[in-house]
């Protein structure tokens, strides 16, 4: 039997590692921090609600759909905004601006959809939870188990894609040197599109699990944006393994630290939780700007 606090911390660590893996994936390919990433998480969170309340299906069946929906949302951002802007010679600030614009569009779409569900299907679409539809296994909530299974499956699949397939090699080559990869016949546009798709898919899947754990609203995903950025920065923003490690570390410590402080100084501290990722990010950038991966590779270099 696990302490609920430990369980929450581990679960949030899993979710955050999926989210920050997605953010880092688009960052290393397109060099843009995707400000719309949080909204893709929210997008995923509405899929299980639809499945449960509108179609009357088991909400866990919606996981593949959430992956596809998040992926297509992200792909649209790439195809309709990122690619034309960078072709027109837009700078990185323009691209960041465009992701912020995409966030505004998603915000409108998701909120409109939430209103639509509320009006037409009498579904509580804001601050909703699916916790009572969850199963339990060995006294553990299902979402806890599912998050581990999903993390394992997705991370292994991504690892195999990147290391064992020709396309994965092409992807890594594009990350290293896009123009050289292009000269050697790699379709870099396809690589970018696929990485945006996978990134959005990861966001969608992690969003899909949130309603089983906490109350979810259209703004939930963008409220996690701080934690996602921080996890990626802690991971070094350059490595996928670092993103997973950063997500786990920050997710666990965010919940642990908040709860510890709540016990010490009082419960009023809990709403200030978003301050933790900001502080962690500031400290990381000041002391170890290369993040966990930089730290580890630095040690390797020192030993050699």
């Amino acid at each position, binding site marked *: 039997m696990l302490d609920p606090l430990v369980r929450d911390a581990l679960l949030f660590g899993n979710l955050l590692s999926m989210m920050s893996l997605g953010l880092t994936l688009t960052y290393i390919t397109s060099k843009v921090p995707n400000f719309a990433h949080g909204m893709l998480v929210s997008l995923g969170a509405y899929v299980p609600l639809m499945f449960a309340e509108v179609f009357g299906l088991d909400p866990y069946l919606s996981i593949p759909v959430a992956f596809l929906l998040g992926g297509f949302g992200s792909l649209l951002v790439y195809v309709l905004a990122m690619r034309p802007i960078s072709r027109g010679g837009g700078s990185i600030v323009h691209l960041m601006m465009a992701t912020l*614009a995409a966030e505004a569009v998603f915000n409108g779409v998701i909120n409109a959809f939430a209103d639509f569900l509320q009006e037409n299907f009498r579904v509580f679409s804001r601050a909703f939870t699916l916790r009572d539809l969850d199963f339990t296994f060995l006294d553990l909530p299902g979402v806890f188990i599912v998050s581990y299974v999903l993390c394992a499956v997705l991370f292994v699949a991504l690892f195999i894609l990147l290391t064992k397939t020709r396309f994965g090699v092409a992807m890594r080559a594009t990350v290293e040197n896009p123009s050289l990869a292009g000269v050697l016949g790699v379709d870099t546009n396809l690589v970018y599109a696929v990485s945006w798709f996978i990134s959005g898919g990861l966001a969608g899947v992690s969003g899909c699990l949130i309603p089983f754990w906490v109350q979810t609203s259209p703004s939930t995903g963008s409220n996690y944006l701080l934690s996602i950025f921080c996890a990626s920065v802690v991971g070094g923003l350059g490595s996928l393994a670092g993103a997973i490690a950063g997500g786990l570390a920050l997710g666990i410590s965010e919940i642990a630290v908040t709860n510890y402080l709540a016990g010490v100084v009082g419960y009023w501290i809990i709403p200030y939780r978003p301050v933790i990722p900001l502080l962690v990010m500031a400290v990381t950038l000041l002391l170890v700007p290369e993040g966990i991966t930089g730290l580890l590779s630095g040690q390797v270099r020192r030993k050699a």
Partner: protein
Amino acid sequence: MPDLLIFLFDLIAMFSIYLILNLSLCLEFGYGGIPDFGKVLFVAGGAYLVGGFAGRFASWMVGITGYDYIRSNSLVIFMENARLSGDLWLCLAVFIPSILLAILVGAILGYLASFPAIRLREDYLGMTLLSMGEVARVIGNNYPDLVGGSLGVQVPDPLAWAGEWRFPIASVVILLFSIAVWLYVDRVGHSPLGRTLRAIRDNETTAESLGKNVSDYRMKTLVVSSAIAALCGALYAFYTCGVVATTYNRLWWTFWPWLMVMLGGVSSSMGVLAGTLISTSVIKLVNLFKESLQPFLPFDVVWVESMIIGATMIIVLIRRPEGIFPEEPQVTSGMIGAKPPGDASGDTKS
């Protein structure tokens, strides 16, 4: 007052408030090249100061004691306004220190933001400043002693004496402030300082090799522009007679200013003016008519607005990333041997 006049004065107020904010963005990003994705932080700083300070200061000035400022906020403000409505000098005595302190708070926040801004690349800086902006909202929303938490606070009205003419006068006052800021930013743009900032923006290494202290210039740019942004927040708080932390969100105070300056042209004071005028007019006009669209939609019409604004931004970025008024080669008037922009032989941009 006729409806048209009310609409016009409303528009003037919104235009002026955003003009001030957008000019600060022009100063730091257009000239200085610092992409500030946390504008909301500085606006909120100015507004929070007015929310937290002006009312308490006014109570002290008129001698209202024995009330908890936050819990009996509307009562305290009501009594203050009753006193303020008869005394112009008292109004100024509340207004001017609040504005000055708000500017100071903005400058301090800008100084804090300059630590990451000197050290980080655009992408890391964007993430850091955006996060700082979010934290400003979290603190405002959860620390009730500052601006009343999620309920917000009212602010004493320095124009309480104006009665029916309160909003028109407020619009004109804010317009005067915005004209002053416009003149300042325009002067900076055409001055040696402006050229230094542009040089740093276009090529940091070259500027450094010419003896310019890059990090010092960046720090000072952020301090000044953040102080201007805080002035905008303070004026907005006085104009709306209240501060609610959730109003200071990323969409209104970071995204809209960016959209407006990108539309007009981020590196020219004329461009910022044009972009602000067009955007605020369109937003106000759309606000007039959007309610009539509501019966045809199965959801709240405000979400359409969010979608359209986001899409507009993307179209602007694709079609005209340099804005309506692209940056022209700068020629300082009166400079010996200055040539008109058309036949400037040396290239100003690499």
